């Protein structure tokens, strides 16, 4: 088995919580970061004003299992799509990708097409999010 194929899923779950674009409201992202920490995960939080390249590079260096993308400004379609493109360029399209923030239901199908696996809108339970991660983490087909 090559190192690309090996499954190291007994290890700690590492999550990247990122805010792409110019949206500066990060309270929600920080709440999620702390909640996932309380669920026993390691959460790399990179702050606000991240470009899609910065997010993909961080995900690569930190070897995360999950990326949580937060968007409250309505720019989620273009931003999340660009993040997915940057991940694909780095050979990382097997990660679990979760969207959060203000994302209308009708956009979720479009997002799913570009590879966003789930969306947790405002009022979502962080425990549900953690459970979803635990069930779906590992190499995505």
């Amino acid at each position, binding site marked *: *088995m*090559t*190192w*690309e194929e*090996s499954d*190291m899923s*007994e*290890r*700690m779950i*590492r999550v990247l919580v990122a805010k792409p674009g110019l949206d500066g409201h990060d309270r929600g992202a920080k709440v999620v*970061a*702390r909640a*996932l*920490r*309380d*669920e*026993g*995960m*390691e*959460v*790399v*939080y*990179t*702050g606000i004003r991240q470009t899609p*390249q*910065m997010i993909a*590079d*961080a995900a*690569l*260096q*930190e*070897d995360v299992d999950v990326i949580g993308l937060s968007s409250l400004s309505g720019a989620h379609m273009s931003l999340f799509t660009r993040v997915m493109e940057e991940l694909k360029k*780095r*050979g*990382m399209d097997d990660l679990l990708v979760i969207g959060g923030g203000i994302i209308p239901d009708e956009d979720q199908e479009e997002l799913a097409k570009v590879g966003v696996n789930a969306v947790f809108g405002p009022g979502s339970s962080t425990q549900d999010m953690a459970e979803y991660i635990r069930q779906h983490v590992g190499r995505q087909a």
Partner: protein
Amino acid sequence: MISGLEEGVRAGNLRAVARALTLVETGGRDAEDLVADLRPAARRGHLIGVTGAPGAGKSSLISKLAKEYRARGKTVGIIAVDPTSPFSGGAVLGDRIRMQELASDPEVFVRSMGSRGFAGGLAAAVEDAAVVLKAAGKDIVLLETVGVGQGELDVAGKVQTTVVVLTPGMGDEIQSIKAGIMEVADIYVVNKADLSGADAVARSLHSLVDQPGTGWERPIVLTSSVDRSGLGLLADACDAHLEFLRTSREADLAELDRVQKSIVSLAERKLNNDLGSVVSPHRLRMLATNVRAGTMEPREAAQEMIRLLVAAYNSASQEESEAREGTRDLPERAGLSNGMAVSQAK
């Protein structure tokens, strides 16, 4: 054995480096083998530990020091350690936030680590991570930890150069800061030197510049994000210390002492683990009951535990030599794997 990972790391493949770092964090046989295989390629570069109280500005300082080294044509790896929650085992790793200026530089690799409950201790895990980054070609590896506790002192024993970061306002407190971390420092930095009180802190450090037993005089460097010249001096001080380590006989002996302490500590840890595997909780309970009832001396109980351990080692080594002779399949024996077999006369 996970194939291709060693080659990937040495080629500087970013995904391989990231996966290797995860592997050494997770630990286990494959991780130990990988580190052993990478060690020859890691006998280069400079591992610099940056430590100090929370709020001293370590992350920003490291970011600026990395930029300084980049301007000097060096490649940089950064390991940033944050505390793991003792309750949940999770962590928020937020040091990258203060290193944004490095984000677009492909020659800088930043990795965040939780302090976790590493089986071999934080220091061992961090040392292994540094081996990976050095083997991948990084000239400078900067390690950030919070400077309190024995764990962090152990980390200081693993790096080549320890930088301790202080801030103005600590003037009177210098003397009461845990002696340990001030003593392991190779370089003192007074950060946020644009604030008042910086000179007072620098002055109170003057009595501490002589490093006992090595002949090294600790530089005191004032740095500030306002005035960038401090960073050049800090890089110079680090380079000077590396040169000192290479040429000084006392430093060489001090390093040999550290390696010695480290392997003793590893052996102690292994004995401890094996004792725990070999003496069952039930057996231990019985021994404790006997000692409390007065039918056994504490020393006898301890001796009994050691007897069980030795018997287990002998039995394991017997099985290994039988396996080598082909007379028996080698079973998995928890806690008593490889390396402890004493060679038996055939």
